[in-house]
């Protein structure tokens, strides 16, 4: 296991080139990855700029225009309360981005810290933490998020917590094997020899050398987090209305399949494009950062 993930700076990124040069090379060598990065960036921009991009107020109802088909006034139609569908999709990016990034960050950071510490300590601390992680792994992501939401009740903060908890053991497992490999390196021994404290070694020497697998896992989870958020909202257990969310828009559209099929199309395209972009980017990053992690 220890030899499986050898963590070294990838050879083609070690040069002292500036960021621009690295980005250019990345987009030349990995066009699909660059397309993914573009999609992700576009989504972030849409989320930030939604008040300026959206043609209408996403929560303002116009009952007379309920279920209007796509037209000049409502580019993507309107929903059952006459709210502009396009504006709701644009604002929906905010929830997806916010939940996606924060849940991924929270889950992977907690999982990483816990496991790097555990791997570094070894002994019964390690064994105990690992057994708990094994138990957590037996809970399917969505099921666990659902159960947590049932207890915490719907709110933005709770959705983030509920999605991040299943990530803890999954992120931890990958970073752990990296940390185990790093732990055996000579520079760790050297640091110990000159009397560096445990925490200094963990934070300054072990953690930075686990970054490559961390970035790969975090990107993969970002896609999952967006999908789980959409699923929770779809099941009515996500962020409470009237905040626009792609998953809930889809759930609401199911009642109007016959009269307003477009309501079932566009939010789904938004989710798929977002996750598609994240996946393309993740694939390319994985190839660049660590070809040996291809099996994940």
């Amino acid at each position, binding site marked *: 296991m220890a030899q499986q993930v050898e963590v070294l700076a990838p050879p083609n990124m070690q040069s002292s080139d500036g960021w621009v040069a690295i980005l250019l090379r990345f987009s030349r060598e990995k066009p699909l990855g660059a397309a993914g990065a573009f999609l992700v960036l576009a989504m972030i921009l849409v989320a930030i700029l939604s008040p300026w991009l959206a043609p209408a107020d996403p929560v303002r109802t116009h009952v007379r225009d309920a279920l209007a088909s796509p037209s000049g006034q409502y580019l993507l139609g309107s929903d059952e309360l006459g709210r502009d569908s396009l504006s709701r999709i644009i604002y929906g990016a905010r929830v997806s981005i916010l939940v996606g990034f924060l849940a991924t960050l929270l889950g992977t950071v907690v999982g990483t810290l816990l496991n790097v510490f555990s791997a570094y300590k070894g002994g019964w601390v390690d064994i105990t933490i690992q057994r708990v992680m094994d138990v957590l792994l037996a809970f*399917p992501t969505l099921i666990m998020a659902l159960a947590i939401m049932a207890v915490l009740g719907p709110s933005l903060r709770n959705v983030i917590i509920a999605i991040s908890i299943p990530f803890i053991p999954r992120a931890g497992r990958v970073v752990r094997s990296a940390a185990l490999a790093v732990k055996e390196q000579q520079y760790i021994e050297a640091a110990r020899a000159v009397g560096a404290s445990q925490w200094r070694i963990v934070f300054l020497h072990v953690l930075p050398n686990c970054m490559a697998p961390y970035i790969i896992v975090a990107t993969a989870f970002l896609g999952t987090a967006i999908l789980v958020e959409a699923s929770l909202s779809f099941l009515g257990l996500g962020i409470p209305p009237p905040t626009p969310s792609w998953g809930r828009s889809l759930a609401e559209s199911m009642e109007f399949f016959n009269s307003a099929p477009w309501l079932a199309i566009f939010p789904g395209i938004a989710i798929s494009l977002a996750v598609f972009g994240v996946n393309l980017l993740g694939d390319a990053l994985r190839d660049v950062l660590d070809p040996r992690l291809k099996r994940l």
Partner: protein
Amino acid sequence: MKEYIVRRLLLMVPTIFGAVTLIFLLMNILPGDIAMMILGEDTGQASPEQVARIREQLGLNRPLYVQYFSWLWGIVRLDFGNSLWTGQPVFHEIWIRLPITLTLISFSVLISAALAVPVGILAALRQDSWVDYGLRLFTISGLSIPSFWLGMLVILFLLIVFSWFPPLTYAVIYKDPWTSLQQLFLPALVLGYRQAAVSARMMRSSMLEVLKEDYVRTARAKGLMERTVVYLHALKNASLPVITIFGVEMVILFSGAVIIEKIFNVPGVGTLIVDAMGRRDIPLVQGVVLIIVGFVLIINLIVDLIYSWLDPRIRYH
């Protein structure tokens, strides 16, 4: 091998114990009062007497350790308490819905294997050709399109073109296998596509790796037909990691089933847990989560055993 099985079974005991404890902690330690949730915290109309009655009914007024041991003792006797909504034993509610969910999941696994293995092999054999790129697009779409949306699109399409609706009642596999499989084909296909995507990617990279091995070159050098080399020599070793991922993916299928069942109106465990959440039927939610985790552990065990049977080196680690 026998020793390995026994060891694996013994290791499962603390894991199950841990899972049971964790579910208890989740439901009882996390902030949020279950009694208030059941009464509807947002209405603010719950009187203290009502809250006290619900707490009494759920046994929430007892000390935590008493609740914990009674939950443990209940599980040993397969008594998970009663549903707050129907008043029926939780175990019974789950038991009658389990067959249809297991049929759906097994069917999805079969469909995904039937898709993933040929797609993965083809993509590996035609590496970096347009076939490979096309298949890659197919698999990465499978990972990106939410399965519930795909399910909705399938229903929407069939509704508009053929005026078809998902069936109102579903047949049970052991009573009417043919109807059951027919009815579950579409949900299983939607559910299986995502898994096929993951497994096909795995199959591809695993096959690529094996095809570079010395023994494959030897097989080719001694003049075997390419077909024999690929299907007899390479495929066998390339399948190993794919089997592991099938185990992992079975776990993910339980998540997927929850939402697909809801869309296609399949009266399985997934629909049960979602409805239980909507009605804040906490004992039922606890019970379903526990049963699902139990199945996940059993599946992991089976995958490990198959793996160690295929690759004897694992047993000695």
